[in-house]
C-alpha cells in the first residue's frame, strides 16, 4: 500500500505566545510535530505493519522542518519529503498548502493519506479535506478508528462526542482525532535508523508550480494577544459563606447567572 502522511511542524503546546514587530515570536521556541499528526503517523505505521507497503511523510515548510521529518522516520515511517517553500513563497494559506501537497501526490497512486484533523497553531483543519478534494478521493475526518479489510475500509469517527461508524473504500484520506491510537516514542534504534532513511527535498519548481499558481486567497493583516486578565478574587471565610458569596457575585456582579 502507498501510504502518505501530511505533517506540520508546530510550536510546542507548552509555549507561551509573544509578539515582536506584530508577528509571533519564534526565538527560542520549541517545535514539535503537530500532536494530531502524530496520531496520523502512528496509524500509518500500524497499517503498513499489518497490510504491507510504505509510509512516506510529507511536509510543506523550510529546512527547520527536517527535524520533525526525522522524528517521524524515527517513529517508523519509511521515507520523508520536504517541500521547501522558503525561497519561493512569501505568504501562503490553506489553499496554498493544499495545492502544493496535492500537486506532489497526484501522480503517486495513493491508497491512503492520513493527516491530523487540525493543527494546534492555525486551528482551521482545512488542509486534509482540501487535499482529498483536489485528488478526487473520499475523505473522512476526525477518525478514532481505522480498519482495512480487503477492499473495504471501516472507519469510526468522532462527531462532537457522538460516534459514527462508516463503511467506505480506498483510495481514502482520513484526518486523525484524539483517541485514534497512542503514538509511540521514537526508540534509540529508530532514531539511528532514521538518519539513513531517504529524506528528499523539493521546491515548487520540481512540482512544475510557480508562486502565482499557489497564491493565497486570504491574508493576515494583524496578530494580537488577548487582553491581560485582571487578577481574580480568591474568596475567604467559612466555606459555606464563600459559596453564598460566589453565587451572589455571579448573579449580581458578573451577571452570568
Amino acid at each position, binding site marked *: 500500500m502507498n501510504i502518505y502522511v501530511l505533517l506540520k511542524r508546530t510550536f510546542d*503546546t507548552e509555549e*507561551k*505566545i509573544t*509578539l515582536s514587530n506584530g508577528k*509571533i515570536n519564534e526565538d527560542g521556541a520549541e517545535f514539535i510535530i503537530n*500532536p494530531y499528526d502524530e496520531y496520523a503517523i502512528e496509524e500509518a505505521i500500524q497499517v503498513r505493519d499489518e497490510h504491507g507497503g510504505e509510509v512516506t511523510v510529507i511536509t510543506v515548510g523550510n529546512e527547520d522542518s527536517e527535524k520533525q521529518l526525522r522524528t517521524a522516520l524515527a517513529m517508523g515511517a519509511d521515507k520523508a519529503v520536504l517541500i521547501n517553500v522558503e525561497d519561493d513563497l512569501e505568504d501562503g*494559506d*490553506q*489553499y496554498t498548502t493544499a495545492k502544493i501537497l496535492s500537486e506532489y501526490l497526484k501522480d503517486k497512486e495513493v491508497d491512503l493519506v492520513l493527516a491530523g484533523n487540525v493543527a*494546534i*497553531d*492555525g*486551528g*482551521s*483543519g*482545512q*488542509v486534509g*479535506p*482540501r487535499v482529498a*478534494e483536489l485528488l478526487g478521493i*473520499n475523505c473522512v*475526518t*476526525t477518525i478514532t478508528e481505522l480498519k482495512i479489510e480487503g477492499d473495504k475500509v471501516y472507519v469510526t469517527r*468522532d*462527531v*462532537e*462526542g*457522538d*460516534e*459514527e461508524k*462508516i*463503511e*467506505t*473504500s480506498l483510495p481514502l484520506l482520513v484526518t486523525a482525532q*484524539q483517541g485514534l491510537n497512542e503514538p509511540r516514542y521514537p526508540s534509540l534504534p529508530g532514531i539511528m535508523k532514521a538518519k539513513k532513511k531517504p529524506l528528499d527535498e523539493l521546491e515548487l519548481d520540481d512540482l512544475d508550480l510557480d508562486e502565482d499558481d499557489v497564491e*493565497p*486567497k*486570504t*491574508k*493576515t*493583516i494583524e*496578530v*494580537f*494577544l*488577548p487582553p491581560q486578565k485582571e487578577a*481574580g*478574587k*480568591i*474568596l475567604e471565610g467559612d*466555606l459555606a459563606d*464563600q*459559596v453564598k458569596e*460566589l*453565587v451572589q*457575585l*455571579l*448573579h449580581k456582579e*458578573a451577571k*452570568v*447567572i
Partner: protein
Amino acid sequence: MTRKVLVLGEVRDQQLRNVSYEAIAAAKTMAEGGEVVGVLLGEQVKDLANSLIHYGADRVVIVEDEKLAQYTSDAYSQAFMAVVEAENPDGIVFGHTALGKDLSPKIASKLNSGLVSDVTAIGNEDGNIIFTRPIYSGKAFEKKIVTDGLLFATVRPNNITPLEKDENRSGEVSSISVDIKDLRSIIKEVVRKTSEGVDLTEAKVIVAGGRGVKSAEGFKPLQELADVLGGAVGASRGACDAEYCDYSLQIGQTGKVVTPDLYIACGISGAIQHLAGMSNSKVIVAINKDPEANIFKVADYGIVGDLFEVVPMLTEEFKKLKAQTS
C-alpha cells in the same frame, strides 16, 4: 459593495442549532446591504425555514431528500453546490461545527476559494470585511481578509450575537431538487454518546472536572451543578486520561475549545494546554484544594477548598437563587 451571502442552517434533532442564527448575523455584516439567503439541507426541513427568516435571512432555499437525512460529505456537498450554482453567491457562511468543519474546506476547494475558519468576530474597516479568529488555541488572535474571490467563513458557536428575532419578518421559501448519487461513505451506525441537552461548544455554562474529581462517580456532583445551571459538563485531559470520563468531554489544546459565559473549573490545576481551551470564557470560577494551582491565575473568582464539599453547596445555593428569581 453589496454581496449576496448564503448561510447554511444546521439542523440537529429536527431543530436549528443556535449557530445558524449567529451565522446569519455574520452574513448580514458580510452582505453590506445585500441579500442573505438561508440554505437548509435535510430530509424534511421546510418547517424550519421561517425561523431563519425571523433571525434575519431574506429568503431560504431548501433541498429535501432522504439522502440528506444524515450528514455525509458527498451528499451535502452535491446539494450545497447545486444551490451555489443556482444562486451564484459572493459570500458563504457555515457554523464551525463538526459538519461545518468537514464540509466547508471541501466546498472551498470545489469553488477554488479561500476559507476563513473559526471566526469569533466580523467587522468592516477601510472597505474590507475583517475576520477575527483565534490562533495557537486562543493564546493569540489574527485578523484576516480575503484577497481573492468568494468571502467564505465559518463562525465559532457562541461568539457572534444573533440579530433580534422578528416573527413578523417573512420571505420566500423555495426548493430545488438535486440528483444525489455516488456516495462514497455509508453510515452504518451512529452511537449517541453525548447526553441529551447542551453541546459543549455551544454551552453558555460549563462545569469542568480535572484529576481532582478522582473517579467517574466523582463527576456526578458536577453533572448535578451543570443541570441546575442548564450547562454542560467538560473535563481536563488529565481526567480523560485517567478514564474518569470520555474524551468527548475534553477541553484543551488537543480537545475542544470553548467560549462559555461561565466556566467552573473543579479540581483542575490549570495546565497551559487546558487554559488554551477555555481561557477566553467570559467568567472563570476555580475550585481547587491547592491555593497555588495555576488555574487561580486566570480565574475571576476562586474558592480554595475540596470540590466534593464546595460543588454540592453551590448546587444548593443556585437552586435557591433560581427559586427566588423565577
